[in-house]
């Protein structure tokens, strides 16, 4: 891809971007959110029409009009958010749009052929999934493998991975890397988009860094270090990766006593959270970390157990009750249950605190505007105005708005589920700083994270979940990755 330009009304999203991927190599594409990585890929797949530039595949110029054409042309993508028909079987998903028919003159879909073709494909790739399993019964990582198998079945020469490990556990990621290695051996060129430095440096051969829609540098991965990549991405030196701890936790604030959820997860979990403490929660996917937070918050039903805040039991049967008793939950799926995309920043900020602004029947508009302004300033949200629709903001800024929403409810306990997922390096640091400020102000935080670095960087102690149960709590200072992994496997 050379000299690709794309403008949207008011913004130049791509400005002479270029990317050269060699066959049989993994090429990492890096940049902060908004750097133009996704736009570049969308130009490749014809989701957007490029304004200028050329795309060459094996020396021939190509121009795909949609992802189906791209697929036929040998360019496939494994999406960040998988687009699959979850209610259909694995085989149906693989051959969707090109079902094999029973015979040349019998235009009926052959179930038998679907199964056979799927099995052949999976054998070749070493994937162990049954063809007639329903897609919704598979884990995210297995679904991803199906997606990769689909790319292979189209004979893809270029496969694009967009944040493929963001919802995978460490083991599942290993498996993915093996498959990528195999694709490499088959001569595929791989474009790999990710925010995780460690895996980039591990699996990629070359790295291209983009910033503000421009090509910044392309280097061999072996010549680069994490800090150098970050420097290229941000365009300046970053201080530490995590802010300094400004306060030590004091006395007990929240006590969870043998908490169990209606669905069986979490199971008999007990722990104590101190005032001004950040308690990290580690564990594999499906270990019940999200469910733990949701049960504490009353979003999932509680079967038994007690939640004791400041020595008094709180009921927390619904999110409304929990908010009233001083809890806040930042959810994992920002788009599904965090933001109100179509509403503006003011509405997104004040939605949980409307009671505060109600004067009998009417709302105090000026108060809402003032507090939103204050929240934008405190959270350092980058936005033209508070009337901007939240979906127009980057992921990091959306997250800051939601954090601002919760701070407006004046919570004592913040429950954060993957607070920095899908957020670029610069914004991540800002979020860490905000958390540190909250801790300094005496708030207590429980933070679920799949990123080990983050857990070690921000937390005082780490609770490890395994199979819905609490496998143990480690002091961060004396913990290491092996200890955490050992605990995470305890009840699996």
């Amino acid at each position, binding site marked *: 891809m050379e000299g690709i330009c794309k403008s949207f009304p008011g913004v130049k999203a791509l400005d002479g971007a270029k990317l050269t991927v060699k066959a049989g190599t993994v090429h990492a594409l890096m940049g902060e959110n908004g750097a133009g990585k996704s736009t570049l890929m969308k130009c490749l797949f014809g989701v957007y029409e490029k304004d200028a530039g050329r795309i060459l595949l094996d020396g021939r110029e190509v121009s795909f009009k949609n992802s189906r054409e791209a697929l036929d042309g040998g360019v496939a993508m494994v999406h960040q958010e998988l687009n699959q028909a979850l209610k259909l079987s694995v085989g149906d998903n693989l051959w969707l749009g090109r079902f094999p028919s029973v015979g040349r003159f019998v235009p009926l879909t052959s179930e038998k052929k679907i199964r056979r073709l799927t099995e052949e494909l999976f054998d070749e790739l070493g994937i162990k999934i049954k063809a007639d399993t329903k897609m919704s019964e598979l884990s995210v990582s297995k679904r991803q493998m199906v997606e990769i198998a689909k790319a292979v079945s189209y004979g893809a020469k270029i496969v694009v991975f967009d944040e493929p490990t963001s919802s995978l556990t460490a083991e599942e990621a290993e498996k993915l890397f093996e498959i990528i290695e195999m694709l490499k051996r088959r001569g595929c060129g791989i474009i790999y988009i990710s925010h995780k430095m460690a895996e980039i440096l591990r699996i990629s051969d070359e790295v291209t860094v983009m910033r503000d829609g421009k090509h910044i540098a392309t280097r061999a991965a072996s010549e680069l270090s994490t800090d150098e990549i970050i420097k290229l991405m941000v365009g300046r030196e970053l201080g530490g990766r995590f802010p300094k701890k400004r306060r030590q936790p004091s006395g007990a604030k929240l006590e969870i006593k043998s908490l169990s959820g209606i669905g069986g997860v979490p199971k008999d979990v007990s722990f104590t959270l101190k005032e001004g403490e950040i308690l990290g929660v580690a564990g594999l996917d499906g270990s019940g970390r999200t469910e733990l937070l949701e049960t504490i918050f009353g979003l999932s039903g509680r079967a038994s157990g007690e939640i004791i805040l400041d020595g008094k039991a709180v009921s927390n049967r619904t999110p409304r009750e929990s908010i009233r008793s001083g809890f806040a939950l930042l959810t994992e799926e920002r788009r599904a*249950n965090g933001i109100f*995309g179509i509403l503006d920043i003011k509405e997104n900020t004040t*939605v949980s605190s409307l009671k505060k602004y*109600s004067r009998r029947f009417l709302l105090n508009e000026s108060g809402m505007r003032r507090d939103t302004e204050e929240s934008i300033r405190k959270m350092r949200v980058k936005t033209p105005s508070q009337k901007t629709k939240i979906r127009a903001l980057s992921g990091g800024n959306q997250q800051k708005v939601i954090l601002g929403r919760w701070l407006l409810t004046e919570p004592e306990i913040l429950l954060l589920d993957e607070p920095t997922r899908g957020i670029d390096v610069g914004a991540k640091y800002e979020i860490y700083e905000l958390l540190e400020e909250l801790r300094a102000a005496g708030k207590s935080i429980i933070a679920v994270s799949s990123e080990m670095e983050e857990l070690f960087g921000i937390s005082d102690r780490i609770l490890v979940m395994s199979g819905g149960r609490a496998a143990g709590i480690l002091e961060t200072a004396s913990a290491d990755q092996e200890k955490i992994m050992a605990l995470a496997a305890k009840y699996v």
Partner: protein
Amino acid sequence: MEDKKKDNGVPSERLMNDGIFVKIKNRLSEKGASVKRKYGDFMAKPPHDKRSMLAEFLLNNAMYILIIGAIIAIAAMRPRFLSPASLINIISLTAAKLPIALGIGGAIVLTGTDISAGRAVGLTACIAASLLQMPNYLNKMFPELPPIPIPLVILAVMAVGALIGAVNGFFVARFKLHPFIVTLSTQLILFGVILLYLQIGDNGGQTLSGLDDSYLSFVTAPLFTVFGIAVPMYVLYSVIITAIMWVIWNKTAFGKNMFAVGANEEAARVSGVNVFRTIVLVFMLAGIMYGITGFIEGARIASIASYTGQNYESDAIAACVIGGVSFVGGTGKIGGIVIGVLLLQIIFVGLNFLSVDQNMLYIIKGLIILLACALDMRKYVAKR
């Protein structure tokens, strides 16, 4: 600055006026700035962009452009279309159809719909008419009934409407049923109730007429006259209701919650919004609007039969969509609904002026809804 003054002390009238004036000025300059941001550098754009921006503008406002074009065309062919009498007729029709559209608008903001609205109007019209027949009228449905004060009847139809809405809302919120299927069922039930209601006493399913003068004049007496043509009272009622609905939608916690639930129900739940109560209240409020529509229609038509109110919901839904209340949820404005109802009535009256076949009207209405929805959806699907 202005706000502070208001908060701290008793505002003098002069300050209030200033406040409103400054507010309007700010509002206008804000609007101007956003228009400038969007279209200001138009001349500086390359021709390709110019063309696509123009196309974008035309498509985003296509419904308005088409309708205004139609108005000009009709006015050119039939100049009497824009005579005072015709215009007042259009305004009156708009006023009559506005409350039901305002009610349905809330259901659409919740990504739902309400097809029981027409039958709810029918039932409440029947109730209002039967309670307010002339004392000495021969075919009176309740012969022994003493004259009932009008405010009581209004409260009664609002209560019936609210009850219908509560049932709709309860099934939607409690059982997570789609409002389409819930209101499809209730509209059938309501039709049955209407037919049974009209059988009461010796009525035997006949049309209800012979309405009391107090009722007729309360609704249809002249509010004032322009060019010798009377503007009926219900125009005033409609204006008041619209103002109240505007306040509810924009200035209350309930209104904000409604938009939040419509924009993202799950996020609303996590944010502590009482989703169940919000949904039920939206439908109840809609029901109250249907009750008011029924009350006005009762006197406006003055002879109520089982088919009264039939298909009213389709006009109301069309008006909402034309006015920018989108089925994607979480978006819509009261002002848009008013414009939507107005434009639709203009079209209907205009087509009458052109002596278009009554049967054709249904086809045209259907096409308008389809086109409006398609154009609206364009704004929300990913741009290419």
